[in-house]
């Protein structure tokens, strides 16, 4: 709800320039472009989760379910139905969104820890389906035997199949679209009702806002965008396995959002970047990389309760 001040605009321009130029500077600092794609994809998932967590004040521990539905949706579409990346993304995203829309009414009346627990429970249902239904999902071994396909746009063909930079830019375009939708909604009257619910649910209700309905909408939008991230995750790896649906994956999204700062729009992307880079570096050094991320997380929560970006912002403004 903040106005468009110059500082903020400048920060936005810098972020987008860095993202656009990633294939050029990332290798120079010792990274590789798949790592960049991974940051963007998981960043999108964490930002989508944060639409619900940071802007509506509702904590879900089950977003991996919709992430995984998107991932399996695109994989199964390409493997079994039609070898089209675009169609796969569409079907995967719709699958996750529709599932969220149907599950929503059963859970939106719950609050706090009860909501979180029930979202985990629904997530685990999808996990066990993917885990057990070997003949279709590949079970524990994951869904293999497919790859992303070149993108046919009519006037041109983009080779995202073998050119990782081209795939990165596809991810970035969809990321930008998804962020555009979120930013636009958050500045609208509807977005303000969500912030009102986060700030004070009782007041929101007695201002005539049907809180459950608005939480449902926020939930569906959030899960829909997480499904989109899930499709991109599967395409990035050319592979899906049930871990994409597992509840710890949901926990990772929450960690990213809180790590980066859940009260800021870009925070979860920063959180995802820290998480992915730490994981990439530490997992090559030690099998216990998760304990280091855990330690880092605890330190951030203790000393910078508004996340890394919240801390930086306070330093800049003071």
């Amino acid at each position, binding site marked *: *709800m903040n106005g468009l001040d110059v500082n903020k605009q400048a920060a936005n321009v810098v972020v987008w320039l860095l993202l656009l130029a990633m294939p050029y500077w990332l290798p120079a600092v010792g990274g590789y472009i798949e790592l960049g794609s991974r940051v963007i994809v998981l960043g999108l998932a964490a930002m989508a989760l944060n639409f619900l967590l940071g802007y509506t004040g509702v904590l879900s521990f089950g977003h991996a379910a919709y992430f995984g539905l998107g991932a399996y949706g695109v994989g199964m579409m390409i493997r079994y139905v039609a070898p089209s990346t675009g169609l796969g993304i569409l079907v995967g995203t719709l699958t996750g969104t529709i599932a969220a829309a149907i599950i929503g009414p059963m859970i939106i009346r719950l609050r706090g820890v009860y909501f979180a627990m029930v979202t985990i429970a629904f997530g685990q249902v999808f996990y066990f389906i993917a885990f057990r239904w070997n003949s279709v999902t590949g079970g524990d071994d994951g869904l293999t035997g497919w790859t992303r396909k070149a993108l046919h746009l009519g006037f041109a063909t983009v080779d995202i199949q073998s050119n990782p930079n081209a795939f990165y830019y596809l991810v970035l375009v969809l990321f930008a679209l998804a962020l555009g939708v979120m930013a*636009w*909604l958050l500045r*609208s*009257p*509807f977005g*303000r*009702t969500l*912030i*009102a619910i986060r*700030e*004070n649910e*009782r*007041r*929101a*209700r*007695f*201002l*005539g*806002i*049907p*809180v459950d309905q*608005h939480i449902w*909408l926020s939930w569906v939008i959030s899960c829909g965008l997480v499904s989109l991230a899930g499709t991109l995750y599967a395409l990035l790896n050319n592979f899906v396995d049930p871990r994409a649906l597992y509840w710890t994956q949901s926990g990772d999204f929450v960690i990213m959002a809180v790590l980066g700062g859940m009260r800021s729009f870009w925070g979860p992307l920063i959180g995802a970047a820290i998480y992915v880079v730490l994981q990439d570096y530490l997992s090559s050094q030690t099998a216990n990389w998760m304990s280091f991320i855990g330690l880092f997380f605890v330190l951030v929560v203790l000393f910078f309760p508004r996340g890394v970006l919240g801390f930086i912002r306070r330093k800049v403004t003071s």
Partner: protein
Amino acid sequence: MSLLKVENVSKHFGSLVAVDSVSMTVEPGELRAVIGPNGAGKTTFFNLISGFLTQTTGRILFEGEDISSVLPAQRVWRGISRTFQITEVFPELSVRENLRIPVEVAGGYRLSPWLSRDADAEIRARVTELMDMGGLADKADRLVGELAHGDQRATEIMMALALKPRLLLLDEPTAGMGDQETYDITQLIRKLHRDQKLSIVLIEHDMRVVFHLADRIMVLAEGKMLAEGTPKEIAANEAVQAAYLGKTAA
């Protein structure tokens, strides 16, 4: 037609009868005060009218229609808005934003993903008007959570007013305030009642405020209605003096 008609409403919490068969009729343009000692059931009675709680027996009519089982948000749409004993605002948003949200909801924009230029200008003008009325114009961009108690309360009242209610319910609007703040809020309520012809029901502990503002007073004690009348009648009522005014003096 009466604006609000409460008919023999009771509320039980287990074996406790918090409100016991209370009736009340409020006419359009009236300012009604509900008073009574602590634990008399005033706030519970209020919560029944606003839909925060559902009554065990009895019914509530608003503008002639039975709203007994209508949800809180829908009672707001029908024209009942309220404030709370403990101020309920959006503490981390500015005064302007706190007021903008109810103005947008009242304009029917709660689900809108965008606003036309005209609608936006209209909303801004209305927010400014409300801030001026509530004496908040110089604090427009401060976070409400950082304001003095009196200003927070004024913000809450203006938020309730932003909904263009036909009935405003104020739960202890001067609770916990100093003399100056109490005076300011009393003047604000008086202004809304006189200039806007707004119908108001308020719960109040401060007798100066009650006798200064109210057209009629209802006294509750132990969940039952003890008396009802003009401020003069209530002041002269012996049962009230014994149960309530006497107690506070003691």
